[in-house]
């Protein structure tokens, strides 16, 4: 009897042990599939005039009204803030990410479209879409340091790390204007393919997306000569349907991501070899891109379907698509 009872008891213990093990596994699994709230995503929505915040699972969304037609955004990590171009209000605002409110406004920036922030020199460079120029602002004093004359419809801007060279693409003109980052003199004009949109620098390479030329052109940042170009061909699409916009590199610069617009795909590229690794189907007319700080997850804004696609960078697969505001333009991810 006793032994039988002991056996029964040990049997129950065994069941409990197995159960608790399974529970622990389940908890571990849950923790794995739903990582702790690690990064926050901010998306500017052109038409609804707000920012949508979400976690890096696309959940826990919060809408914050901002201004008329918010478009380009850039982070100021020291201030834990975001600069936002308010296109139809002719201004740039600084938005505090902790307080979730606007803490500063820079007025008289007509047609503010795209912007970059140079951390070391605390300068903000904003393209003025309808005014064929860009504005350089000292964020501390609020003073305008320079106006840079561009071609028609200036959009993408890139700076060398040292801040010594400024590149600005003019969509209509099919040109990239090069300026001295110190005295703001015009250095050169690079002639590009049709409708240059966004610029991104990798070592001494300037990558330029040509939206209507359906390619990414690569120029040397010293000689300004063209080095190479990348042509896209996802299955089932013709060249004319490939309208690349945003270009993004990971932190090591070995991988590039390009949103292919009307082709509804984002492409992952081996940046050193300039080889296409994978086309990933996303929403309609993807353009804005951002990576999580650990480079593991890519966010792709789909301009015509008002949503954002989350992509697992290592597996090169889409995870899910979440709703945004109306006409999402830019996305920033922060810790």
């Amino acid at each position, binding site marked *: 009897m006793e032994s039988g009872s002991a056996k029964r008891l040990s049997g129950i213990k065994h069941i409990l042990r197995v159960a608790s093990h399974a529970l622990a596994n389940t908890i571990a699994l849950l923790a794995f599939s739903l990582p702790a709230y690690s990064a926050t995503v901010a998306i500017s929505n052109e038409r609804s005039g707000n920012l949508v915040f979400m976690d890096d699972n696309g959940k826990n969304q919060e809408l914050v009204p901002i201004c008329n037609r918010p478009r380009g955004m850039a982070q100021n990590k020291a201030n834990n803030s975001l600069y936002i171009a308010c296109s139809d209000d002719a201004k740039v605002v600084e938005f505090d990410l902790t307080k979730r409110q606007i803490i500063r406004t820079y007025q008289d920036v007509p047609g503010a479209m795209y912007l970059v922030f140079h951390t070391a020199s605390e300068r903000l460079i904003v393209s003025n*879409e*309808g005014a064929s120029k860009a504005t350089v602002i000292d964020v501390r004093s609020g003073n305008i340091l320079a106006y840079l004359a561009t*071609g*028609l*419809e200036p959009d993408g801007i890139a700076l060398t790390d040292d801040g010594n060279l400024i590149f600005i693409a*003019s*969509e*209509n*003109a*099919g*040109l990239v204007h090069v300026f001295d980052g110190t005295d703001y003199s*015009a250095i*050169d*004009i690079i*002639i*590009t*393919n*049709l*409708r240059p949109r966004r610029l991104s620098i990798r070592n001494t390479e300037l990558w330029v997306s040509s939206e*209507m*030329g*359906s390619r990414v052109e690569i120029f040397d940042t010293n000689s300004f000569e063209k080095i190479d170009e990348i042509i896209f061909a996802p299955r089932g699409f*013709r*060249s*004319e*349907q490939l*309208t690349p916009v945003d270009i993004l590199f990971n932190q090591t610069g070995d991988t590039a991501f390009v949103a292919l617009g*009307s082709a509804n795909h984002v492409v992952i590229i081996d940046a050193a070899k300039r080889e296409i690794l994978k086309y990933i189907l996303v929403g309609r007319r993807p353009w804005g891109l951002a990576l999580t700080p650990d480079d593991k997850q890519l966010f792709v804004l789909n301009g*015509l379907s008002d949503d954002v696609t989350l992509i697992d960078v290592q597996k090169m697969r889409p995870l899910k698509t979440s709703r945004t505001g109306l006409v999402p333009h830019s996305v920033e991810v922060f810790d």
Partner: protein
Amino acid sequence: MKLHKLILLACCFLSAPAVSNDFDITIITSSSEDRKNSGKSFAGITVKPDRPVLRAVELAVYESSTLFKTLGINANIHQLTLDAERNLDDQLKELIPSSLLILDLPLDTMEQVAQITNKLKLIAFNVRHSDAQLRDTLCLTHVFHTIPSDQMYFDALGQFLVYRGWRKVLVIQGPSEKDTERAKTLLVSLKKFGATVVDQRIFSLSHHPDDRDENKPEFITGGISYDVVAVIDSQKDYGRYLQYSTRSARPVVGDVGLTPASWHFSLERYGAPQLNERYRTFKTGEPLSSQISMTDAEFAAWSAIKLISNSINSRQKGDDLNLLAVLQDPASQVDLYKGTRGSIRHWNNQLRQPILLSTPDAVIAIAPMPKFLHPKHYVDTLGIDEPESQCQLR
């Protein structure tokens, strides 16, 4: 003009002194043309805007100015008004050699002028006439068409109807020869994409009760079943009174209602609002009001100049501007602000481009419609394709 050139040169702030290269553009119009009568026969009201294309050409040059400066090109716009009393050959001999010509002329004069300028080896653009047969009859090396052909317009419409499932079409046309020709073109498009013409009827501009079967909307659209009414009314006379008066509650498309067009003030994507805004405001002394945008003829004239400036981006400073070589290059292209770049069809010198399907205040669709596929080129389901073209230039 000399002074003008000097100023342009002085302002080129870039490195080496740019070699000057003149890019002369001449807009040819006719002194005898009466443009005011359009659409006035039936109701005395003009609805079809008809403006000279000068402003659109000026806009294209304005947009290209930074590039031209960079390449050392001086663009000059000239105008030649043809005197109907004088011999055409004599007048055209006065043209600036190597000038690019924008033919803003009535059809018969345009055809004569194009034949002459082709012999003079001057590049000329037809920016006004969509007549499908012109693409075959005016098959000339130096003549280009940037206005879509009626075949392109109607193929866009045909695709849209079939895409919507509106396959039974009642065609109503005007009595003019032009309307008859265009109706023929429409029928080709409808047949091509699988729509059925349930009847083809001709309206009368008369108000007489005896003609009521041809002039009363309820009668001319009665006695038959259809999904949609397609109207051919080139002069925009009568067709506009058909909407909301059809016997059956059916949409009206064609020259009224949902209309195929190459440009529209309400296109809101692909940078189009910026182009429309610029068109209205770039001439500071002469702003236009907010719903005015380029007509298809103006858009065609703008496209012609932009086709040149968008296709010379691989040139070196000081290279000769050989317009024919630029246009015949398979890589020639133009950003049309419609989401798909335009290019030249090598067989008949027609600019390939997407076609908008729009109501008076909204763009409803942009053709090619989904699922209409072409073996070679995305946009070549619209218009006269290479195998069926009688014109085989290259």
